[in-house]
């Protein structure tokens, strides 16, 4: 029926991007075939150095119309070599979405036919892995001004993992309470899950130093 995009078109579009971004200094990229359920799909996997990430992001946005930042993941690898202790993974998509034109004041919807889509309208999937060296305060260039969708992703990554984003405006806690101590980022690997009994409900398991008002009193 051809109601979905064909794999070969997506692969061609991915190869065009890979050839282009591989010319950037410090960027390695390849097309990786993956499978989800029964469908094969082609994903661009890029490994830029931390210094070349910003240039890569700008190139992806302006030259290849990568218009959508899906997710940013921070990972703490305490057991790896010193130059790979932290990793930031970006998942980007090209949606090819344009504002619908209007004729005589009536908007005409853009109906993309998946079987004939070509060029900059072809949806592609990009995964960017950036490895950061060992540091107590790891940081990487922010892409908040390129994709606004990265804004809250970056906030969350700093909040939970502790990777800071240089140039990010308005960094704050989003999921943890505002009074969380500085430097406490629960997805770092030195914090272990600990199970405790009901009598320890108010115990200071996470180092917040918070106690209830009635501590020590017999109820």
């Amino acid at each position: 029926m051809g109601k979905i995009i064909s794999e070969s078109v997506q692969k061609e579009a991915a190869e065009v991007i890979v050839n282009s971004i591989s010319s950037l200094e410090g960027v390695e990229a390849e097309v990786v075939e993956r499978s989800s359920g029964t469908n094969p799909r082609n994903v661009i996997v890029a490994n830029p150095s931390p210094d070349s990430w910003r240039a890569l992001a700008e190139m992806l946005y302006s030259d290849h119309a990568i218009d959508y930042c899906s997710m940013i993941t921070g990972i703490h690898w305490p057991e790896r070599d010193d130059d790979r202790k932290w990793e930031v993974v970006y998942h980007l998509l090209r949606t090819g979405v344009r504002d619908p034109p209007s004729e005589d004041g009536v908007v005409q919807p853009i109906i993309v036919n998946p079987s004939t889509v070509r060029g900059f309208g072809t949806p592609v999937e990009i995964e960017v892995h950036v490895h950061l060296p060992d540091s107590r305060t790891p940081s990487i260039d922010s892409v908040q001004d390129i994709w606004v969708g990265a804004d809250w992703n970056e906030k969350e990554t700093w909040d939970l993992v502790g990777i800071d984003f240089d140039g990010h405006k308005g960094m704050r806690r989003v999921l943890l309470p505002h009074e969380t101590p500085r430097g406490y980022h629960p997805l770092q690997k030195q914090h272990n899950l600990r199970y405790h009994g009901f009598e320890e409900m108010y115990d200071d398991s996470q180092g917040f130093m918070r106690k209830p008002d009635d501590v020590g009193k017999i109820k």
Partner: protein
Amino acid sequence: MAEMWISMGPQHPMTHGLWTLKVKVDGETVVDTEPDLGYIHRGVEKICESRDFTQITTYCDRLCYASANTWSHAYIYAAEDLLEVEVPERAEYIRLIAVEIQRIASHLMWLGAYGPDIGNLSIMVWCLREREMMMDLLQELGGSRMHYNFPRVGGVKRDLPYGFAQRARAKLKLFLNRIQEYEALYDESTIFLVRSQGVGYAKPEEMVNHGVSGPNLRAGGVNYDIRWAHPYSVYSELDWAPPVERSSIKGADCYDRYRVRVEEMRVSASMALQALDKIPGGADTHYEPEDPMILAKAPSRAPEGTSGAHHFEDSRGESMFYIAGGGEGRGKQPYRVSIRSPIFITIPFAAKCMIGYKVADIPAIMGSFDPCIGETDR
């Protein structure tokens, strides 16, 4: 007039869950907003790091109570990418049926809750009546009413029960007839039209740049959908097209977002009906659990250096999981699980959409984006 900040939430009828919207008002006009989330942050990502791959499905169900099946399926597809499992085609059809019925149930929950938000009080009972039918169908598949824990890495937990196909066809056809009732209740309700039309405009290009996807994006007159753009499952075998709404020059308003969800329920019901007809092996046959027709063998370990990711069309937009292998017990558990919640990204955008409108428009605009705080706070 002097500007001042007011706090809507954490307990407020507008919020649909536990969160705060701080609004800066100048008289009745909204001039600035700031969302404040995290009230029900449960640390699901951290918990998943100490669970086996098969145990995580349960936690993913509980990300969103209105749309549990789509979330556990989103995880399962990412886990299958990580563990490199080939899924039997019959299982893919069963999953598609489960996900599309869940999408209807989720949209019905939204439709029912959106009416009372802006003054149309009667629609709630109409929608929950049909949602009950959908939940009965899903209960037959998964065994429980809200958190089904239905998919497995490599397939599904159980085959379609005896007589399911007949009951599902009857209920979906009845439901397709009853959609007109909601349309009549909404489109002929003056208070609904007055409050939803012409507020909360959002343009497609701006929405994409802000990371907004799914029905909210399609309401702007574009047919971008993960189900055709990054194909998974067996959507290629069915006859369908994502519904698109003809919006105004200023973009999609709240009314367009309501229209696109109603149309999406029609498309989902039609897809589930087609899948029941086309399922390999027939919808009336029943295979025992763990039969190779519905469940493929899957490895239980993922070594370090492997990773799996999957973009999934959730009922609220694009959800996704990223799983890095190599955790405890030589990779028996994931090293890191990262969850993309569509509403976590949409809430800041929706809050920006309100600027310039009146305070009374806030529930109409916020509700139209279908917020679900369970998945937002994770």
